[in-house]
């Protein structure tokens, strides 16, 4: 009997240790997801190391009127804009902003989302749950970026406000997701076991439920960053986001719009940068989702 039990334990152990390994293995097999990861990591590295090879004042901001509206060349890979600035270098610098703000937004929405979502899910059916969910409904009933626009226009146009506003407007979706995850885990037997041992609610949520819910949360977080980057660009486009002369992609497109009819090429590069970044993130998110779900097509 004892050997039998030991054999079972041994069979279970290595599986848990290499669970992350198994997930990574499945992720790796997905060629598209891998490609997305490579692209995103490359972009990230390029953006992070930018201060090493680019000088903000000289390369990104300085206007050289004599050089304006030049097409792509060896010296300026994507050409120059209406102020003679090198577009390629501006795009690289813009990546820093997008990624930084994007992650900030997700940090905010994840924090709030996890706290509210797990409380609502764990105390499912209670007054707390109902109140929180009605609040979510209210926020979700305001379509699109309207809420963020309203918040930013009131609180002033700076980066922390932008991150907060967009974070708050994406929080309800994350909260709902966390709540659904927590709900489905809560009813499993090992939670009941923990509770019958007298473990405190807080402990249960943090140590038992959340680690199991983390999968879908991470997938949603990745896709959130992707959506966040588009949101930032949209806000900057209508003038409520990052202000010039900072080279945010959306702001660049806003400037390009004015010149659109005569110099259409200005529109292309920042857009492609956005598409590339967002696409790679989406592929990573989808790949993660597939890798976390063992019941695949086979």
């Amino acid at each position, binding site marked *: 009997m004892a050997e039998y039990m030991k054999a079972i334990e041994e069979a279970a152990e290595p599986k848990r240790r290499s669970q992350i390994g198994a997930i990574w293995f499945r992720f790796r097999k997905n060629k598209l997801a891998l490609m997305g990861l490579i692209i995103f990591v490359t972009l990230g590295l390029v953006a992070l190391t930018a201060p090493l090879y680019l000088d903000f004042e000289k390369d990104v901001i300085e206007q050289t009127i004599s050089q304006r509206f030049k097409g792509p060349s060896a010296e300026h890979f994507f050409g120059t804009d209406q102020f003679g600035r090198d577009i390629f270098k501006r795009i690289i610098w813009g990546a820093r902003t997008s990624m930084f703000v994007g992650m900030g937004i997700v940090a905010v929405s994840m924090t709030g989302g996890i706290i509210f979502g797990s409380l609502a899910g764990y105390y499912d059916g209670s007054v707390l749950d109902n109140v929180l969910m009605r609040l979510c409904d209210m*926020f979700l*009933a305001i*379509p699109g970026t309207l809420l963020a626009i309203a918040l930013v226009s009131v609180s002033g146009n700076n980066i922390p406000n932008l991150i907060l506003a967009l974070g708050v407007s994406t929080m309800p979706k994350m909260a709902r997701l966390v709540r659904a995850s927590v709900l489905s885990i809560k009813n499993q037997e090992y939670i009941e076991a923990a509770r019958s041992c007298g473990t405190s609610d807080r402990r249960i949520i943090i140590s038992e439920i959340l680690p199991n819910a983390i999968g879908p949360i991470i997938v949603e977080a990745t896709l959130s960053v992707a959506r966040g980057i588009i949101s930032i660009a949209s806000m900057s486009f209508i003038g409520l986001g990052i202000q010039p002369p900072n080279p945010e992609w959306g702001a660049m497109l806003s400037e390009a719009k004015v010149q659109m*009819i005569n110099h259409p090429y200005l529109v292309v590069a920042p857009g492609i940068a*956005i598409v*590339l970044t967002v696409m790679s993130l989406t592929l990573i998110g989808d790949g993660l989702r597939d890798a976390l779900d063992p019941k695949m097509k086979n």
Partner: protein
Amino acid sequence: MYKFIIKRLLMLIPVLLGISFILYSIMSLTPGDAATLMLGDSANEQAILKLREELGLNGGFFENYIRYIGNIILHGDFGISYRTRNPVFTEVLTRFHYTLRLAFTAILISTVFGVLFGIIAAVKQYSFTDNFITAVTLALTSMPDFWLGMMLIIIFAVTLKLLPISGATSWRHFILPGLTASANYMAYTIRQTRSSMLETIRMDYVRTARAKGVPEGKIVFGHTLKNALMPIVTLVGVNMGWQLGGTIIIEQIFGIPGLGSLLIMSIRLKDTPVIIASVMFVATLSSLINLGTDILYAFIDPRIKSLYQTKKKAVKTSG
């Protein structure tokens, strides 16, 4: 059935009140006093006080809010635009039909083509067609709608000169904006339709139908599609709601004088009543549309429909 509808309508009210409260609170935090904004800094102090009285801005926060809501419910009075001095309601209403036309075009395109391509992708799973469709949807969801709009303008209006660049006077003016606005949701609809079809095709009852020797055509369109489309109905409903709010930027790019451009202008000028009214208008409409979708869904799905039928009809016997 009516109990269901009434219950949902009643649940809508606190949500709408909540939205209005949130928006009103946000707007009261705006620095600057409305009356001063309207009359200018150099205006006479008495005139400012008088105007504040008229606008209902004196008194505490809650008093003002209740007065505001009271005006809306009892008189349909959303206040006066700080910018134009006209009643907000008329401003919003005149512009609304442009937004509606744009949203409608977008919904039509995204639903019809979304479902169509979704079905094609599912039926031809893993083929080149499927992969191509998947790639295109990925690209569409990865681009900001305003960029797509600009690129379409450059290609079709500027270079090929096939369609007008901006304005809203003819139906042709709504093609490019409609396409732009539909892109994101069309991509989403394609993905959802595809996965819903694929999921349904794996269902046991499809296997039963095959075992009965039912021809493939009836299997796809009769058995699979009918079931797969039900969740899509919900999607389209949610889409409509979001579409109404998501056209802001597109209106700006294409010069369509709808609610969206009104909103942006009002934000720049801190025209609070207009902002709140516009957002509330859109939010209310989208909530109503969501409700409508839920009701429609209950009519389509026989399982849910029977839940609401009278007891004597729905009888379960064992055996």
